[in-house]
């Protein structure tokens, strides 16, 4: 088990190094931050030189990268070009809003997709199964931001029930969370269904049935529990896609999370903020995947030897 954890840990470290290297490299491509910082106004070459000196930009790329990594370990991502607020403070303000959305929609989608997926699996090949399959396929076939726009059209413009954007109270939370929950449910229903079908074909299910246990007991105590393990992994692996989706959705609803922070940074060419946001989100995704992997290995010994 220790070997397995070590291996996964090592892999996660490589992923983190790759992400940070790519991010630093991309930022480097953006040109001279000193010029961007001064806004091309009335500056002398000496001024620019001083800024470069102050930001440590005259050092080679590799040294800059190492100091970025060093800063990262203490939560120091530099200062925003706009007003000099520490990037870590901006992120600390935005991250909870994004995570709140991520976990609420994840939980909502599990509540929705488990009964639907089990129902589809039990009725395999009959019309409820086919309805659920077609609907989930439809749900996988439109972009999440379009669903968000359609929600605004329905709930804000036609029905006038919910505020179209911002974070003004619990009502503001409904549409973003519901949008992500629906998108996630489309995938998760399929996962629950496949996983249940596989479990239901196992011999211990037949044994449970043949000793006269009630269907409900077999289904929920034997089958669902055993299907849950692969499900957790799949759902964990989706976390990257979930965060990517939320970043886009935030744009539609003006939700004050990491996506909004990143896109404001893009339009302001505020590269330290962009770099920090992307890095923190990527680290989060790697961390969740690592935890899920380790949890899976702890629960199911077969995985460790793979």
């Amino acid at each position, binding site marked *: 088990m220790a070997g397995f954890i070590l291996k996964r840990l090592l892999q996660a470290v490589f992923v983190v190094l790759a992400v940070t290297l790519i991010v630093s490299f991309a930022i480097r*491509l*953006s040109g001279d931050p000193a010029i961007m910082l001064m806004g091309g106004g009335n500056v002398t070459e000496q001024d620019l030189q001083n800024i470069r000196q102050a930001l440590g930009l005259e050092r080679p790329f590799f040294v800059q990268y190492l100091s970025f990594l060093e800063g990262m370990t203490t939560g120091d991502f530099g200062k925003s070009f706009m007003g000099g607020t520490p990037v870590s403070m901006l992120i600390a303000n935005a991250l909870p809003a994004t995570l709140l959305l991520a976990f609420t929609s994840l939980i909502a989608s599990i509540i929705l997709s488990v009964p639907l997926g089990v129902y589809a699996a039990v009725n395999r*090949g009959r*019309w409820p199964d086919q309805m659920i399959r077609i609907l989930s396929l439809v749900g996988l076939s439109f972009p999440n931001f*379009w669903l968000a726009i359609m929600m605004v059209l329905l709930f804000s413009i036609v029905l006038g029930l919910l505020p179209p954007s911002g974070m003004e109270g619990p009502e503001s939370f409904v549409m973003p969370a519901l949008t992500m929950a629906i998108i996630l449910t489309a995938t998760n229903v399929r996962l629950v269904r496949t996983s249940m079908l596989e479990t239901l074909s196992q011999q211990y299910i037949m044994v449970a049935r043949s000793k006269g246990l009630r269907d409900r007991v077999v289904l929920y105590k034997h089958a669902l529990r055993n299907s849950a393990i692969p499900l957790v992994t799949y759902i964990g692996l989706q976390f990257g896609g979930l965060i*990517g989706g939320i970043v886009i959705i935030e744009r539609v609803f003006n939700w004050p999370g990491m996506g909004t922070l*990143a896109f404001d940074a*893009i339009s302001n060419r505020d590269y330290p903020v962009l770099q920090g946001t992307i890095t923190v989100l*990527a680290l989060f995704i790697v961390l969740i995947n690592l935890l899920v992997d380790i949890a899976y290995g702890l629960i199911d010994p077969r995985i460790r030897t793979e």
Partner: protein
Amino acid sequence: MAAAQAVSSARRHFRSLELVLGLVLTAGMGLAVLFSGFLFPDGGESMDLMARLTPPFQSLAHPLGTDPLGRDVLARVIVGGQISLTVGVLSVVGAVIVGTIVGLVAGYYRGIAEVLLMRFADIQLALPFILLAIMFLAILGTGVDKIIFFMIVAQWVQYARLVRGSVLALRDREFILSARAIGVGNGRIIFTHILPNVLGPIVILMTLNVANNILLESSLTFLGLGVDPLIPSWGGMLADGRTYLQTAWWVSVFPGLAIMFTVLGLNLLGDWLRDLLDPTGQTSR
């Protein structure tokens, strides 16, 4: 037994329905987009200012209505499909070519190249692609060519893994060994004996990835990081339409439906192909 047969026959009907619906949607959208230059010679650009903001289903000249500049929504939806389909197809073709070659080499010759490839693939598959693409496009500037390039970079690994896996399963089979025994060269074995046997899973993955990349392109363009806003595209129309959702809902509804029908058609085809070519589920997601 009878019940089981009924179920399997219902399943077959459903499968053929899946195929028909998938073909109709994909071919319908594909043909309309392919002939859009012929159907709408103006490229959806001409402005009928007298007919600004015509609602849909009310005028024969503008069956899906017009936007605030008096441009025909139907024409722009069909013309806008050109971008999406081009990006979807080219990105997948590029990724398949790179991935297949690497996968064949790694699986057939094994050795250090294979080890490196698999480690690299593990790391790359763990990277949050959307976030990195957003950052690169924001810094390097936008454009169809860059989007296609990023998609190839992000996805060739999937094909390389798939092909390598299939090659590993095949390389010690008897028909390969006998081919080698009678003196067939490596190149010929790879291309005439191994490649045809891995085509099934590749085609499935391609179908699903075209669908995926159409969604991805529309998202990036919607965010202002994709296709030039002056060129009609589904993502661009949705970004536009969102600002006047209150006065002209149809401008936001129809491009989204176009995306949905195209992607749904491809997904249905992909599902059907998977049942046909890959019943054991190498490509299941």
